[in-house]
């Protein structure tokens, strides 16, 4: 298989290869090979490549082709994300070594919140899911994927592709406009229509953000809330990872309910560690963590869902006070 592919690629002209695999362009730039003759079969074109350039990278003609084939294969593999129909968490032990008795299965589109005092072990649970613990982490928990335990090989093969993580600090360091940034991400995900998905993602981000922004805004100039909105929309629309772990994204500036729903709507398994009552109750189930273990699994009751509306009103009130202060207004007892 690989050998066939090797032959095919060696016999293809650079022009054709780039037309069918635009992703390969950067590969050549990486090795200072951007000026290869594009109308010759690659194996011949490489004969004209500067030998010293190749040597500097520890390459020769054969290894360039070899690496290119491997790169295209890896990229193709990465594109097909493992189909996750369900993950199951089986209890291990608490900080003091007592048995943690619970089992929980989560399916795509479901939201589970994780609540508990700071330091109780919420992040540990997220870490267990991230590494797909097989009774070998300090908590001794077991994570099943599609009902099965995993060998180390399978865990390595998944290579962190299963889990996307939205953390508390979310900054951008690239110096790009929002539009360029989204298209770059779409391209790296090998999306067939990068411009379309980038536009969709932009619209979704603006729905979440309190203050609107334009496609040509630099990502580094976005406010905290806008960055977060962009990031959540991006994870929902573009990230291939089927599991999303969210670590305390309570800060103001984003429509949290809509953010979480957007992720769940895109058939992701969403786990949120939170102190925010609104987020805790949006979830269908919540895990209560105590002393490093899951103390209880609580299903959100219809009554709680009703209260959610009230909590939302309180939240809106607080938000309007915030906005009033922001815009130079004054607060009187009747504005509350």
């Amino acid at each position, binding site marked *: 298989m690989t050998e066939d592919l090797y032959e095919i690629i060696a016999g293809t002209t650079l022009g054709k290869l780039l037309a069918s695999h635009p992703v390969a362009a*950067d*590969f050549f*730039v*990486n090795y200072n090979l951007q000026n290869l003759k594009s109308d010759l079969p690659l194996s011949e074109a490489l004969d004209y490549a500067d030998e010293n350039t190749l040597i500097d*990278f*520890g390459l020769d003609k054969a290894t360039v082709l070899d*690496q290119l084939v*491997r*790169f295209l*294969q*890896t*990229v193709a593999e*990465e594109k097909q994300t493992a189909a996750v129909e369900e993950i199951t968490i089986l209890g291990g032990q608490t900080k003091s070594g007592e048995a943690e008795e619970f089992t929980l299965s989560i399916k795509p589109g479901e939201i589970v919140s994780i609540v508990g005092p700071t330091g109780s072990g919420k*992040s540990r649970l*997220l*870490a267990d899911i*991230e*590494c797909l*613990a097989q009774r070998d*982490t*300090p908590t001794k928990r077991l994570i099943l994927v599609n009902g099965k335990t995993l060998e*180390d090989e399978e*865990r*390595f093969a998944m*290579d*962190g592709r299963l889990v*996307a*993580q*939205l*953390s*508390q*600090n*979310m*900054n*951008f*360091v*690239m110096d790009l406009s929002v539009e360029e*940034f989204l298209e*770059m*991400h779409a391209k*790296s*995900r090998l999306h067939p229509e990068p411009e379309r998905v980038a536009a969709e993602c932009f619209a979704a981000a603006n729905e979440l953000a309190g203050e609107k922004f334009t496609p040509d805004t630099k990502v580094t100039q976005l406010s905290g809330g806008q*960055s977060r909105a*962009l*990031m959540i929309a*991006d*994870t929902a629309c*573009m*990230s291939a990872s089927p599991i999303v772990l969210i670590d305390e994204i309570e800060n103001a500036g984003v429509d949290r309910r809509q953010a979480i729903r957007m992720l769940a709507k895109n058939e992701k398994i969403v786990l949120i560690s939170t102190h925010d009552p609104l987020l805790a109750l949006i979830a269908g189930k919540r895990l209560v963590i105590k002393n490093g273990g899951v103390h209880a699994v609580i299903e959100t009751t219809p009554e709680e869902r009703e209260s959610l509306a009230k909590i939302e009103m309180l939240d809106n009130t607080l938000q309007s006070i915030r906005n009033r202060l922001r815009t130079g207004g004054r607060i009187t007892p009747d504005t509350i």
Partner: protein
Amino acid sequence: MKLITVAGPPSSGKTSVILRLADVLRERGKTIGVVKFDCLTSFDRERYTEYGIPVQVGFAGKFCPDHFFISNVEDAVRWGTEQGFDILITESAGLCNRCSPHIRGVLAICVIDNLSGVHTPRKIGPMLKFADIVVVTKGDIVSQAEREVFMFNIRQVNSSAKIVFINGITGQGAFMLGKHAESASETTSLRGYKLRFTTPSSVCSYCTGETRIGEEYQMGMLRKMEFP
């Protein structure tokens, strides 16, 4: 004894990653030693010692750090074996991005950080290209999207490496690195081993201390640019 080489640009988080890895390995009852290869100064001796990890530090000074590494690594292994460690980790900085301490048959780790910019993986040479495992740090402060683009750029340079994201402060992700570390092969001596990539070549008048500029002072191996 298992030997692991760790390299990465300055301040990418190599020491933190090694400390978090040590946590995981110690939990499994392993003993660890570290040999830190540095240039001029290092504060890492204190960090390792505070952590109860036996450490040796060497300074390359005016020598090419890569040459310094390769001419001392055998002695490092001898030290580690004598001390009876289960795992010996060598830590060195990839200072010119060409430095690559990776040895064939020895588990090779390259540490880079998300804050250095999404294009950085493409600017790092053999140290990244020939690593078995690429550890990415500081992912908690950038977006998921940037992490993904970063990972994609690593793939372009090294399509076979395992990529592991580690939070050097909380240790999240270190567990998987621990799993990889356990798969490192046993090394008692480096006799007959080979580097994965050549060290930067040298031996010219400037290598031996010449400071004057001019054709007449240039001797030995030289490389000239072509100007139109």
